[in-house]
């Protein structure tokens, strides 16, 4: 994929965000940087259950990968080892359960990242396919996050929280 194709694709993706009612804020390009693949990205945000989260969509040109992530700020560094293990236990349960999306803990940045990434289709980018994934992703992230907060702030048991989450499906 060349830069022009990538720019067209990113515009199509922004239109998908608009269609499902998620605003996009700004677009940026990282090009010709050492140790960094050429990337076009745009930011948006989501406010759900009183939590504001940043959404970043990135198109990595050379490996042909599209990535969408929701970033939540959380004071992970205040957790002790036992609480951290419980948090990892819950995140791992989510990550095991779902093949498409997963959680990453970024302790240094005090961030929790919910991530989806796929190879770009070789022939035809389908708006409907992208929107279908996006809707599911943008629902599932905040839903999981509400359970994560119950673990962090109410000290609820990770196995019970995971069972409750599964029961919602």
């Amino acid at each position, binding site marked *: 994929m060349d830069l022009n194709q990538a720019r067209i694709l990113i515009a199509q993706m922004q239109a998908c965000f608009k269609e499902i009612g998620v605003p996009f804020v700004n677009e940026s390009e990282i090009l010709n940087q050492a140790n960094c693949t050429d990337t076009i990205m745009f930011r948006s945000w989501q406010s759900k259950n009183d939590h504001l989260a940043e959404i970043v969509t990135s198109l990595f040109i050379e490996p042909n990968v599209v990535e969408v992530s929701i970033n939540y700020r959380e004071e992970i560094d205040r957790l002790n080892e036992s609480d951290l293990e419980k948090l*990892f*236990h819950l995140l*791992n349960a989510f990550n*095991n359960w779902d093949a498409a999306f997963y959680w990453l803990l970024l302790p240094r940045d005090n961030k929790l990242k919910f991530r989806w*990434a796929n190879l770009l*289709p070789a022939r035809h980018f389908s708006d409907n*396919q992208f929107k*279908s994934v996006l809707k599911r992703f943008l629902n599932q992230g905040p839903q999981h996050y509400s359970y994560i907060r119950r673990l962090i702030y109410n000290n609820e048991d990770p196995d019970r929280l995971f069972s409750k989450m599964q029961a919602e499906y």
Partner: protein
Amino acid sequence: MKDKSSTKLSDKIKSCLYELDFHEMDEISENDSLKLITGVQDDALSVLMEIDCQLKTNAVNLRLIPSLEFKSSDMLAFYQLINTLNGTLMDIGHFSINESDKGFLLQTSIDYSAGIFDREQMIESIKRIVQQGLEGFKLLMEMLNGDQCPYQMLASYMTEMRENLQQDEKIIH
């Protein structure tokens, strides 16, 4: 009885697998899914590959399950290791721990809800996930069996990978 759409999709995936030289596979039909199961054999590792065509969601889930088992009770260290691996990899798959059988898993999913099957995308995704799986699982195996600090091993692995990448780029240019 198999659903027509899943049969069609599974036939397309089978054809992709044949192209990638996976000729032997089992087919398991369940309520909401049709699974194709095959194996990836490497020098020291044998890995089960499961391609799961979901009928309700029209998603195809690719899973790799290695014949690797860990015995450590220090789960926090394993969670951190997997988290670091996922954070470093940042590609199309993610690793996780299957706590019930003390094993590992690498998986990704491709959505076909719009009904458009992209053969090249599927072939490339299978190739990538197999390559990532073999590299990641080998690294985990070395960490499980070695006496070197897992983080140090991960760091040297990343350096090696970066050097390989730079060499590849030189060859391309």
